[in-house]
């Protein structure tokens, strides 16, 4: 009665065969870049975490919301988990007239309020020794000279060895200034053997032309492999799990094609309005804010072919293939919908409409809801529509991918027996309540044969940890390690705009957004769009 232990043939490679190039890359990846030289590192020693090498992080825009709520807590959580190198340095750069201590105090507040892991004094002590603050404008050369001096001093005092990442948590209009100044004072180049990386946040432009312009600015200073574009969705465990679900299992992939899939619905709904972000949001809208990046990335991960390995190049290659195979419907009038939330009662709270929000012109045509039908022209997906929708002030906050399967070609039951049987579905719940739901038919207990839909549920929080790492923890660590599989490449960003630009152009030329009551699931026209295809939206 012994229960076996050792998993066999871990690598999946056949004995007696040479490793393919991709497998070699993967092995080298697991061993790590230092694997060859550091005798204490060993690929089979899985207890040792990947700790970033000596380095520092320079943050532009430290006073912003994102930085306080997500980035600083993520850095503390990384330190608390022992994943940051000893001597790690965090340099803040902003317009405030702060000393190092004021900055440390600000980070301290942010950490106490928002960190995921418990506060520990000794971790804070270790971390806060590396805090520095430089005060200045984004275009001020003197401030950047000061920044360079600070960094050089850190290399000497803290042993950061010239390795620094620059996190541009600032509106895109400041990118050119910051990047230019970094170049001017020579911060884009470290000493021999060190690295410099730059991290940028969406929006990556507002159309193809502006995205190219932005990329040109960044590319002119930093080489492509040193630029990390953050799409925080890709740092989420559930999104990474799409790949595990599809490619680590035998039971899903055979039905993952037009033979069995009827259509796919990808939803990202928010229950909040634009809040205080009128300046950023007006003129951008839901489609540019969400569909172009998050939803198309989710589509790519759902629809892509199996990558030959899990390194950054292989995954990017497959994603790029799928994104370039996306086709828009001919009739954009029917198969693209935009809306604006109107006043209403959301979840028992009275809320105002978009046009009444502070700082929004009463005749604004910015979309707060967008839905579109796309097709992927590949052998696997031809004829299978992908319906994407996103919006603010919808029924509840939810992001999910629903793969809806075809009906069984033949049912040995009478129509009355299967009246309550819908289509089988596999739903990946990205957030909140992360997990996977499978919907299928089951016999209702009793003497008659009656089949009804039931749900089978896998909840992430139940099967694994209650406190999965935040997306930003993973992504920041990956930047420091120089590990890029979870970052969209410039090609992916541009392909995203190629999909969206014609839709935006059509919208600009035709009509205006339809109003929908806050707290509902969007404008009526979105329901008509699916009804025309004989389908309906899932209530997520």
């Amino acid at each position, binding site marked *: 009665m012994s229960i076996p232990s050792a998993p066999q043939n871990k690598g999946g490679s056949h004995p007696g065969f040479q490793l393919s190039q991709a497998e070699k890359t993967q092995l080298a990846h697991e061993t790590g870049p230092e694997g060859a030289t550091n005798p204490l590192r060993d690929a089979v020693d899985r*207890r*040792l975490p990947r*700790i970033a090498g000596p380095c520092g992080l320079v943050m532009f825009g430290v006073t912003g919301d994102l930085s306080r709520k997500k980035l600083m807590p993520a850095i503390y959580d990384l330190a608390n988990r022992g994943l940051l190198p000893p001597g790690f340095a965090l340099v803040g750069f902003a317009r405030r007239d702060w000393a190092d201590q004021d900055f440390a105090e600000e980070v301290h507040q942010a950490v106490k309020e928002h960190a995921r892991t418990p506060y520990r004094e000794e971790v804070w*002590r270790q971390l806060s020794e590396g805090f520095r603050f430089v005060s200045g404008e984004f275009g001020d050369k003197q401030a950047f000279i000061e920044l360079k001096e600070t960094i050089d001093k850190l290399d000497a005092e803290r042993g950061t060895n010239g390795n620094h990442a620059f996190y541009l948590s600032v509106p895109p209009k400041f990118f050119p200034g910051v990047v230019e100044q970094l170049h001017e004072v020579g911060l884009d180049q470290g000493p021999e053997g060190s690295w410099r990386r730059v991290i940028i946040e969406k929006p990556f432009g507002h159309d193809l032309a502006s995205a190219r312009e932005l990329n040109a600015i960044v590319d002119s200073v930093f080489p492509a492999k040193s630029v990390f574009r953050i799409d925080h969705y890709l740092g989420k465990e559930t999104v990474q799990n799409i790949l595990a679900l599809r490619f680590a299992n035998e039971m899903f992939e055979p039905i993952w094609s037009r033979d069995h899939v009827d259509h796919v619905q990808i939803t990202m709904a928010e229950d909040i309005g634009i809040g205080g972000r009128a300046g950023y949001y007006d003129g951008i809208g839901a489609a540019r804010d969400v569909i172009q990046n998050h939803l198309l990335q989710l589509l790519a991960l759902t629809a892509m072919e199996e990558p030959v390995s899990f390194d950054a190049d292989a995954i990017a290659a497959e994603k790029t293939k799928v994104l370039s195979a996306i086709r828009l419907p001919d009739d954009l009038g029917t198969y693209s919908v935009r809306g604006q939330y109107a006043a209403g009662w959301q979840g028992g709270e009275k809320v105002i409409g978009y046009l009444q929000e502070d700082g929004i012109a009463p005749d604004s045509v910015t979309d707060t809801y967008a839905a579109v039908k796309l097709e992927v022209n590949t052998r696997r997906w031809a004829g299978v529509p992908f319906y994407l929708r996103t919006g603010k002030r919808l029924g509840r906050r939810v992001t999910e991918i629903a793969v809806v399967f075809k009906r069984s070609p033949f049912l040995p039951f009478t129509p009355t027996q299967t009246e309550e049987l819908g289509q089988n579905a596999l739903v990946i719940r990205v957030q909140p309540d992360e997990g996977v739901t499978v919907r299928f038919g089951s016999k209702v207990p009793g003497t008659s044969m009656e089949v009804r839909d039931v749900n089978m549920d896998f909840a992430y929080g139940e099967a694994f940890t209650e406190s999965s790492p935040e997306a930003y923890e993973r992504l920041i660590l990956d930047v420091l390690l120089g590990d890029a599989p979870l970052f969209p490449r410039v090609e992916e960003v541009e392909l995203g705009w190629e999909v969206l630009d014609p839709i935006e152009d059509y919208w600009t030329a035709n009509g205006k957004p339809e109003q929908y009551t806050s707290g509902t699931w969007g404008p009526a026209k979105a329901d008509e769009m699916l009804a025309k295809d004989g389908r309906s939206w899932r209530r997520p």
Partner: protein
Amino acid sequence: MIKHLDSTTSAKIAGALIDIRKEAGAATTGAVLTLVIETDERHHYYALRAAREASRAHPSRILVVIPHPEQPFSGLDAEVRVGDEMGPGEAVVMRLNGELADHADAVVLPLLLPDTPVVTWWPAESPVDPASAPLGKLAMRRITDASGTHQPSSLTERLRGYSPGDTDLAWTRCTPWRSMLAAALDQLPTTVKGVTVTAEVDNPSSTLLAVWLGWRLGVPVTLSTDKGPGITGVHLATDAGEISLTRPDGMLAVLSMPEQPDRHVALKRRELADLLTEELRRLDVDETYEEVLRHITDHDVAAIDEVAPTPARPTTITVTAQPKDGPLGDQPARHQAQSAGEPEAAAKAGPAKAKAGAAKPAAEPEQGGDKRGDAP
């Protein structure tokens, strides 16, 4: 909620678990493994508390077995705990009275979750050969704690009883030290010429850390004792100068490297729950731990045993860490069997010499390896 079942059976306990879950409105369990804990009255409270904490990361059905062979009548008393402070898992505390105390496996077997891993943990006293203990046989992973009792069990004992799938929390306690030392050498790739490890007397973790360093770096390691707490320092003599990681207070360590400023490193001694959480992350064989045990030679064992009975006197021993003729020497190296595409790994493990009489008789790593279908 807690439900008491006196003079009960495994079937009734299983029924109670389902009933309570239904009452609570949760139809299914999210547990991904069964954690069996064999312990005594004195340790069960802390063990259960740690297991519940670990259950937040690895939802488990926790089965606590407390044998009471001194009781005159044989029988089974149980407390079933589900929900509330239990987090996502569920727990059963079982007291096995009289003759039943010798048949814990019969009680536990019907309560194992179907087709999921089983881990057995002995927080205090542990059997000499965990894999052939009744509750050890049910498990694919067996966790002992050499420091779980006041008198740490000797390393020699641990070695004799080793089977693939065993680990000891003494090894888990080394992880933060090991990762920080590895990170230090990432920063300064240099040749290490000698190692000194200082630790509290009777600290099994320090021995494992010393042997690991000796094995990986290929140099002799000096292990010396002081007042502690736990491991207090590691000094690496390198071509570039001395790298040291010292932790006098058990909380905050200092990393010193040549030509670099001293830096603080948070290196707190971890709680039991954290150790268990790390243990449950991987449920396959810990090959590195096995290699470390394999690198302990008879000479080392003798030296360590000499230190052990005289805890009052700080002593220095030298761990040579050569995989020649240690007590584990006659077990085939796992590395060779599994690393088809990794020639260096196979070379590293080296040919294991048979040495009669030194080790436990038959430990076949393949045992059960091909027979997955046998599991219930």
